[in-house]
């Protein structure tokens, strides 16, 4: 009985890994196609990456613009949301009573709200209520920050729970003010969760489609995911595959740097969790 299950399950998991990754790998491979087709292989070339003087990712002005927009949006969102989220997480962690419940509700509802609801609601708000905020980058930025705050709060709170209150109490007993205990004792210990937040928010925002699309103002504020969406069905060349590959590479680079930084930090602090613990920091699941 058990023996049979042991043979079936590995088949399923390896099947799953192949099914989930091979289509993407094929799409990446076709970005190196020599022909104009995204489906018929005509030999290897870098034509759609750098070769073609007009249509390659390197030379197509609109694609470069989309890459630029994506990076600017992701970096600005990270810069705004990480401090706000950390401070909210610390504050919410210590609040008691009714205000704690209210803040808890306010931070957890966005986690399960479908993005289309947030996107549509913000679009109606920015076009009819807060009309001072123009669609395009400003609206996209506000929308992405709003949708990312909760993710930061979840990551930082998990860390706060695992740290406990002992260290801060010890600092207070030794004469530190509440602020000093926060600044010199708690903050340095929060570092892994800050790092994890940076990575998670960057990757989420650079990949975001729904909110960014609802709040865009047309070609000017087109990001890479928007560009992929609008050209998949047309007769786009393999340059589209190259653009999508570049997007995936960017988030993986950030992710890998984050994981590397996290395991380095842990090693330096005598914690030998290594890559496994770092993976857990980022995915919020024990590795």
């Amino acid at each position, binding site marked *: 009985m058990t023996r049979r299950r042991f043979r079936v399950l590995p088949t399923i998991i390896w099947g799953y890994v192949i099914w989930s990754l091979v289509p993407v790998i094929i799409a990446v491979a076709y970005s190196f196609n020599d022909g104009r087709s995204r489906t018929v292989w005509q030999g290897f070339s870098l034509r759609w990456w750098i070769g073609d003087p007009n249509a390659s990712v390197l030379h197509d002005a609109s694609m470069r613009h989309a890459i630029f927009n994506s990076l600017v949006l992701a970096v600005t969102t990270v810069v705004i949301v990480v401090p706000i989220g950390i401070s909210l997480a610390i504050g919410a962690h210590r609040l008691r009573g009714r205000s704690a419940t209210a803040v808890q509700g306010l931070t957890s509802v966005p986690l399960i709200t479908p*993005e289309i609801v947030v996107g549509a609601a913000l679009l109606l*708000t920015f076009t009819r209520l807060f009309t001072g905020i123009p669609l395009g980058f400003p609206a996209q930025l506000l929308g992405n920050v709003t949708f990312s705050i909760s993710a930061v709060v979840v990551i930082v709170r998990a860390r706060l729970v695992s740290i406990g209150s002992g260290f801060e109490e010890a600092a207070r007993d030794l004469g530190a003010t509440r602020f000093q205990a926060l600044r010199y004792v708690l903050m340095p210990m929060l570092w892994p969760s800050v790092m994890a937040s940076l990575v998670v928010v960057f990757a989420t925002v650079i990949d975001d489609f729904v909110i960014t699309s609802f709040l865009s103002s047309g070609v000017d504020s087109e990001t890479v995911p928007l560009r992929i969406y609008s050209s998949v069905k047309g007769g786009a060349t393999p340059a589209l595959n190259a653009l999508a590959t570049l997007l995936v590479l960017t988030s993986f680079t950030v992710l890998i740097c984050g994981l590397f930084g996290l395991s380095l930090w842990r090693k330096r602090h005598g914690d030998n969790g290594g890559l496994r613990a770092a993976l857990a920091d980022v995915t919020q699941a024990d590795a």
Partner: protein
Amino acid sequence: MKRSPRIWPALAAPGASWLLALFGIPFYAVACVAFGTIDPIFRDAVPQWNPLAWDFGQAHEVLTSVLSGPLQGVFLRTVVYVVAAMATSFAVGFPVAYFLARHAGKRKLLLLTLVIVPFWVNYLMRMLAWVNLLSPSGLFSRFMGVFGIHYNWLDGSPITVVLGLVYGYVPFLILPMYATLERLDWRLVEAARDLGATSRQAFRLVTIPMAQAGMAAAAILIALPMFGDYYTNDLLSRSPRTEMLGNQIDFYVNNSQQPQRGAVLVLMLSALLLVALSWYLRSTSRYAKERTK
């Protein structure tokens, strides 16, 4: 220590007010548009900011359309697609998560990494990959052609849309499912086996009840975005035959002169969210109660 410190509310204030202004108020704005009026000359939606003067005419019209009109088909289809995609996602995702948590052994880190990778690959890239494979000249279509199956997968095929949803969302199911199974107290399963349960009985009577709350959470985590999904459908079909609730919202809010109808549909989706949320909270609290018994 007794004196209530001001620092915590001060720290929570910026984030909380941000969410209030850009998450709370927009919900109110949606209601004001949904229950507002239509400008008689420009035919544009005029929001009604005073709740006492809300006009439910449009909402009533949309609701009638959902219950017995043209939107009925869209709603039923959405529910059927989401349920089918959820069931398939569990059929695929649960065994994967279970194996990872229980039997991965030495390969655990490798397998976990491989399973996490799609989680971080852009959703549109993953859809683009399938559009390429499924297009008439694509590898998958040509492969099927070898067996004499000639079918246009990208022309309003419900199977493509449902499998597209599964492909898109199953990574988001596997990770929380794995986190749940990883934390289970497997000694209880061993105890059940020692007391004479077959492995199937132990699974049904011990493992599943323990994992239930996590399964409910994972189900909600993928069901809600699926209910609001429109891009999977757009990319893999873009046919009225497979249109879902999300496509209607996208159309009315983004591309039409009737954002009011879109606003009503957004409210309906949010109502669904509330139902799901309360069901989830009830099932987890029931589970917590049973555990403390």
